């Protein structure tokens, strides 16, 4: 596809994955991401790829594990409760250094929660989720076009670092239709580590059990070195009107769209406000925030949760100025007026 089409976010993820060379998808139904597996069940056979509706989230992520170690670009998707189930597999993918793209179109929690949009899985996405010392690159797209672009980037980075990459969206982004252009991506480089049968070469072993004394610490330090490189090279964010800003909003994904509207509203009333929108939630754009923290009056973090990313903003600001929070939970979505009212209270 090289022209703009109108598609919903969930279907865009599917097409963008296919255009990025994804040829294996396994998933389990859960609202609000069902358009994606349905799309994959139709499109994968057309592209010679594989679609499997797995018996569980556990099976789905482990099918992706198998497909990845056999060399395929592989993806699974779910929404919050299902992503909790996938955490074991995500930890194994990270430990085994297997690339994969995982999509979480968040819904309200905890527990079965509801099917309304939410951003309450930020901690789970960026602080581990599964067991052990590992990090995922986590993208928080806020438009359907950005979603399309980041899905492609996610596959490239997953391969480059041999590490899973998470797309953290929400029910609104998944259901919303916007014009989008989905570009085909070239896959660079051969994978010289995959299992294909030891034909004419020594056998390969892919495993995450590292029993020899000191060996796991060494392996984990290798993983940390990859994390360090990700932090050095892969941070993405968007900075808007922070130059003269007294108050800077920090928001991602759907919250960022609403916060932007609030920003436009208060700017038109003469309030000097700006915004930083993290695009990578891990690695987090802490320098972008700390760089301006000494010259702004305060930050206002807006989330569809009771305050998760706000902790990363506070770490970045490190006490230099106040960091305020406005959030809604359980499927509540902040209104433009609510945010602008909060801004006016603070300046």
């Amino acid at each position, binding site marked *: 596809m090289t022209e703009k089409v109108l598609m919903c976010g969930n279907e865009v993820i599917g097409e963008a994955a296919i255009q990025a060379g994804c040829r294996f998808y396994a998933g389990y139904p859960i609202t609000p991401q069902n358009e994606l597996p349905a799309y994959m069940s139709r499109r994968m056979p057309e592209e010679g790829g594989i679609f499997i509706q797995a018996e569980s989230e556990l*099976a789905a992520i482990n099918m*992706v594990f198998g497909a990845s170690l056999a060399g395929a670009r592989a993806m699974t998707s779910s929404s919050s409760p299902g992503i909790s189930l996938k955490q074991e597999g995500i930890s194994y993918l990270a430990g085994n250094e297997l690339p994969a793209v995982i999509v979480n179109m968040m819904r309200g929690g905890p527990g079965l929660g509801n099917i309304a949009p939410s951003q309450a899985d930020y901690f789970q996405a960026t602080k581990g989720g599964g067991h052990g010392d590992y990090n995922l690159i986590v993208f928080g797209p806020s438009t359907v076009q950005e979603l399309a672009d980041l899905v492609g980037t996610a596959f490239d980075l997953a391969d480059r670092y041999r590490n899973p990459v998470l797309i953290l969206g929400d029910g609104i982004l998944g259901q919303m239709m916007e014009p989008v252009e989905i570009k085909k991506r070239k896959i660079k480089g051969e994978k010289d580590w995959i299992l294909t049968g030891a034909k004419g070469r020594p056998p390969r072993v892919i495993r995450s059990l590292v029993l020899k004394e000191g060996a796991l610490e060494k392996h984990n330090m290798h993983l940390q070195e990859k994390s360090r490189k990700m932090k050095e090279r892969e941070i993405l964010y968007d900075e808007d009107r922070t130059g003269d800003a007294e108050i800077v909003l920090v928001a991602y994904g759907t919250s960022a769209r609403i916060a932007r509207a609030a920003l436009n509203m208060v700017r038109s009333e003469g309030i000097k406000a700006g915004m930083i929108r993290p695009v990578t939630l891990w690695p987090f754009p802490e320098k972008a925030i700390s760089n301006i923290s000494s010259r702004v009056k305060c930050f206002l973090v807006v989330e569809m949760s009771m305050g998760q990313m706000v902790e990363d903003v506070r770490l970045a600001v490190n006490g230099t100025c106040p960091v305020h929070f406005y959030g809604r939970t359980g499927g509540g979505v902040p209104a433009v007026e609510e945010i602008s009212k909060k801004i006016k209270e603070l300046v």
Partner: protein
Amino acid sequence: MKKVLSLPESMKDVRTHYCPGCGHGVVHRLIGEVIDELGIRERTIGIAPVGCAVLAYDYFNIDITEAAHGRTPAVATGIKRVLPDSVVFTYQGDGDLAAIGTAEIIHAANRGENITVIFVNNAVYGMTGGQMAPTTMVGQVTATTPMGREASSTGSPLKISELLAVLPGAVFLCRTAISSPANINKTKQAIKKAFRVQLENKGFSLVEVLSPCPSYWRLPPGEAAKWIDEKMVPVFPLGVLKESDNEGDDTCVKK
């Protein structure tokens, strides 16, 4: 002089960590011999389980990985679908296959995944210290059934191969034991047959091997072999549980 016995090329020339009298070494060797004899070493991909055989990846001279506990058939599914010309086998214990991985084995069989499963049933969790397995005999003393397994509160030995037999996707199911040289030979033939089913694209094949765990049965190896025949075989009868006349047409070749 003619050399009549040597290590299969599909095995690494290393010592295993298995206890004296453990069946895993025997089953490993049978698989290695079968892979050699079928000439498939360079296209075979193995998946080790979590359990005593977790280190199987150190013993086979093939491409091999290790799955999360019980997820072995899901990993095998992913590999085989991506590489349909490869030969994929899982090596699973009773905890891996019949407890935590029950869903995965049933659904892999039901989809007719063209993979081979070697299921080692020794009626106990060995790796973690001899706890009750789903296949533990009624009355058997384990670390978590100190008074012996009671069917009234812990259920009966789970005959998962029989459960799988009702699924159309399961093409070849066989239970063997390695309690005697004759039975070891039968086990090898069953394993060979299971791999052939996969090579002929017929679908899901599984060999359940009743195997001794002298350490956690608290028996000398010779007695452990007898225990298989006397205690396990009456509950887990040996023989072919299912052999369907699947023709190996395209419906079984997962693309």
